[in-house]
């Protein structure tokens, strides 16, 4: 068993999350790849890999090079077509849509921390 040396933590600060791992793997594997191999390369579950790839296809970062077209035993192949840099694109919900008027309103990021209520409870000494 590899014993982590004292500096190990410094050299390996934090394991990247699944989305970062998938994006990194995609950028390295130039050319066509299917979801199963991508998931294994990224060390990510196949379902989350498929979800993220679908988002990338829908937003134009990836294209489908060969659709499975419902044929049994074949897998769709994808490729990265907009390699913009090391940080993974992430889905951001930035709009509020009003179905009454068809208008959309910007939805800025929340400015208060999500955990404010829990924090207050903890500060008052009550169970969170």
């Amino acid at each position, binding site marked *: 068993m*590899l*014993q982590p040396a004292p500096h190990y933590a410094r050299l390996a*600060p934090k394991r990247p999350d699944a989305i970062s791992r998938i994006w*990194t793997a995609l*950028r390295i594997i130039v050319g066509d790849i299917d979801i199963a191999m991508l998931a294994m390369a990224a*060390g990510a579950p196949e379902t989350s890999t498929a979800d993220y790839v679908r988002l990338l296809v829908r937003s134009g970062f990836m294209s489908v090079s060969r659709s499975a077209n419902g044929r*049994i*035993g074949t897998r769709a192949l994808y490729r990265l077509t907009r390699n913009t*840099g090391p940080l993974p694109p992430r889905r951001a919900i930035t709009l509020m849509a009003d179905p009454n008027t068809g208008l959309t309103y910007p939805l800025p990021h929340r400015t208060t921390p999500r955990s404010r209520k829990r924090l207050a409870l903890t500060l008052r000494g009550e169970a969170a």
Partner: protein
Amino acid sequence: MDVPHDLPEMPREFSASTRLTNMDLCLRTILAAQGAGEGAPRLALFYGWSGLGKTVAAAHAAAVTGAVYILATRVMTQKSFLEALARELGLARPGRTSSDMLNNVIQRLNQNPQPIVIDEMDYLAKDQLVGIIRDIHDAANIPILMIGEEGLPALLKQWERFDNRIIAATPAQRASIADGRILRDIYARRVKIADDLVDHFTVRCKGITRRIVVNIQDAQSIALEELEATNIDLLAWGDRQVRDGSLPRRQA
């Protein structure tokens, strides 16, 4: 198979996932460099013939360790190498001259250490580039994994002070029988492909992952469409051709 036995075992945080032999070897090589003692050199090599899946292995190692990946090219100079590195590190102002960029890259790596993976290292086997990689390694004390063709270790021998700093050199392997079965489990979800048939593919395809996958998918469609069965073994496969990349033979 001469799998190197001096690599450390996979740490527990990585041991749960399924990975092919070369992904495993490549990751353990970079972890060996990472886990070397304070002040010890951290250069590592992963090398082998093309077609063994070195780049997918590199993708795996870089993705799970959060490494910076540089694909070397034939036309790379010191400056373009530093530019690529600065871009991958996400430096907003990399600097204009090579020495500015070198300083900024080293500063960033000291603040926020990340391993570096350099693919197609064969192209960088030149005095200037080997020198700059050594400088970055010495100044930032980060693991650097270099990936290249079969001849890479011999090629780097000519820079003695560089070669001295290589603490792990791992040859890439052909896909093993176990790898073939992992691929079967991933790619044949609709049909049970017997071990004997998968092993036949692995041997006939000489351990080239991509070709094994093609045959597994073929076997799955043959089972479902021609045999109308949900399992297939070597007997059922019969004397069908394995797509092993050899040129098609003329029908007599």
